[in-house]
């Protein structure tokens, strides 16, 4: 870095005394400080929270504002264009006259829940397994590589069909299945990063100090791959939301009439010429969610990099 040779202004004695009394800072407290001052990231956080609140309050909104349930049909009003009268057709109606806006609210529940929970499972399993394998190497790593390669060599579609046959499809099952199947990419990535990091001198220095393996993994290796993990997580959640809609075709996951952003989007493509608004609304929601996740991932990455100063 070009900043490495920058000279540091030595504060006056009074300033120094004040500085010495400050509580010790850490990567996390600094990151939080920087995040709070990063408007774009905070905006993205806000949008995601708004989406989550809208979905969580779907019952409330549909009863009190739209007076419509998500499975209610109105065959006299199919393919309605977006209109304020009645409010239920705010975003139009679909091929059997259901309210698009209400279905979108309920769809958010499934999509956000599946996306976030499954990604959390993916990340937890993937990071834990990948870092451990990369750090331990030897037998542990051989076993890991064997398992992941085997899992990856079975076409996912067959695995999912097997799951669909064994379990009753539903959002919960879907989350578990996606969570337990899609961690391999993340874990391979973490393993590779750990391989490189464990040979770095600061990790050897930690060993010389007498740090235990767990400490080295949590304090030295993890913080150095975390920024990349955030970016991966953002990609992961977006991919899961779309995967969920593909899985509905197989009878695994969300079955009609329960809506999800994914199946709203895939259903609507059939009627694209007659009712383009049915495609646009779930598409925009998925797009905004993924965009916000990228922005947050990016913001977190910057916040966790001590070399980047917060703009004051």
């Amino acid at each position, binding site marked *: 870095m070009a900043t*490495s*040779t920058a000279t540091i202004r030595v*504060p006056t004695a009074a300033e120094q005394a004040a500085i010495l009394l400050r509580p010790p800072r850490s*990567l996390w407290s600094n990151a939080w400080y920087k995040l709070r001052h990063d408007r774009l990231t905070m905006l993205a956080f806000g949008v995601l929270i708004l989406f989550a609140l809208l979905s969580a309050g779907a019952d409330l909104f549909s009863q009190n504002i739209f007076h419509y349930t998500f499975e209610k049909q109105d065959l006299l009003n199919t393919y309605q264009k977006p209109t304020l009268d009645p409010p239920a057709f705010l975003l139009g109606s679909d091929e059997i006259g259901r309210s698009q806006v209400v279905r979108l609210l309920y769809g958010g529940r499934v999509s956000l829940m599946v996306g976030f929970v499954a990604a959390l499972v993916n990340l937890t399993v993937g990071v834990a397994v990948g870092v451990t394998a990369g750090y331990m190497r030897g037998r542990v790593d051989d076993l890991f590589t064997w398992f992941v390669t085997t899992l990856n060599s079975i076409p996912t579609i067959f695995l999912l069909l097997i799951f669909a046959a064994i379990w009753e499809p539903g959002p919960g099952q879907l989350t578990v299945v996606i969570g337990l199947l899609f961690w391999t990419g993340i874990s391979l990535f973490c393993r590779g990063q750990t391989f490189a990091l464990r040979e770095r001198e600061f990790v050897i220095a930690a060993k*010389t*100090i*007498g*740090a235990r393996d767990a*400490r080295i993994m949590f304090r030295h290796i993890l*913080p150095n791959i975390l920024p990349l993990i955030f970016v991966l997580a953002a990609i992961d959640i977006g991919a899961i939301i779309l995967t969920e809609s593909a899985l509905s075709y197989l009878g695994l996951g969300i079955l009609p009439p329960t809506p999800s952003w994914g199946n709203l989007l895939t259903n609507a493509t059939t009627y694209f010429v007659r009712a383009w608004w049915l495609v646009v609304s779930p598409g925009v929601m998925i797009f905004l969610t993924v965009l916000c996740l990228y922005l947050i991932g990016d913001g977190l990455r910057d916040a966790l990099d001590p070399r980047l100063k917060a703009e004051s």
Partner: protein
Amino acid sequence: MSVTTNITPPKDEFIQRTRSTATADSGKNLLTVQALKMHFPLTQGIIFQRQVGAVRAVDGIDFYVERGETLGLVGESGCGKSTTGRAILQLYKPTSGSVKFDGTELTTLPGEKMRRMRRRMQMIFQDPYASLNPRMTVGNIIGEPLEVHNLAKGRAKTERVQELLKIVGLNPYFTNRYPHEFSGGQRQRIGVARALAVEPDFIVADEPISALDVSIQAQVINLLEELQDRFKLTYLFIAHDLSVVRHISDRVAVMYLGKIVELADRIDLYEHPLHPYSQALLSAVPIPDPQVEQKRKRIILTGDVPSPVNPPSGCRFHTRCWKAQAICSEVDPEFIEHAPRHWAACHFPGA
């Protein structure tokens, strides 16, 4: 280690035929290294890995370090100096041999005991840019050993960190800063403070000044010397700068291709090197006196350092030695005390 034979090396009045003298324990030794070997296996195959050879980074070395002294370890790049340092601290598991630290055998010490033993032996690294975690504040870096060994917590830890910063000549208000905000010399001081945090007896300084500006090198050297006096430290000082080693060391060991070829008191080694390799190495040091410098005769070695995967037979230096005879390619010379406290591994030592 060496091949036992009946061939008698040239007579010398001081010769003692026992190799173990280089590691004789006079009670003053803090560290004793015997027949230490560190081989890195070269493997082939994906599932069934078979060993096709080994990099013999360190191939049987004997030496001791006395309490409170500085032993300089010099040699070309790739001769196994750093590996020796790391093998002593058990950062690599030595292939064979013994490392005794203050009477405790380290090579067989179980994990948890070794971990606690690390409190007494520390390391200063070559690259101050790579040896500090970029995502930790200086306070956390220096405080970590205190946490690991449960030496101080909370307020006491903060104060101890500030004290350590003062000891190494840094302003204590730097605790909340990150490594990238410092210059190379300052970072190396942070590395020194981290090593000092646990109040060790022994420090392996692995080329601690090689990565620094010449103007900063002297500062760090002076700091290390000052700390040695103040805290009664023992150093294994690894370097390739011969004038620095001459300045800081009490005794010097010269390494070539995984072996120590000569070990002697500093002045003895610099004035009367016995091994041809040491002679060649020392002849390359410039003398800061123009008249003497003009008369300085350099011994230029031909060829390159052979591969440690397949070292030459007999004496490892025979491929580049101007004194080499038939015996040199057949018999590995023993590491013998040719003069009091002056060991060398050569069939034809001396001028």
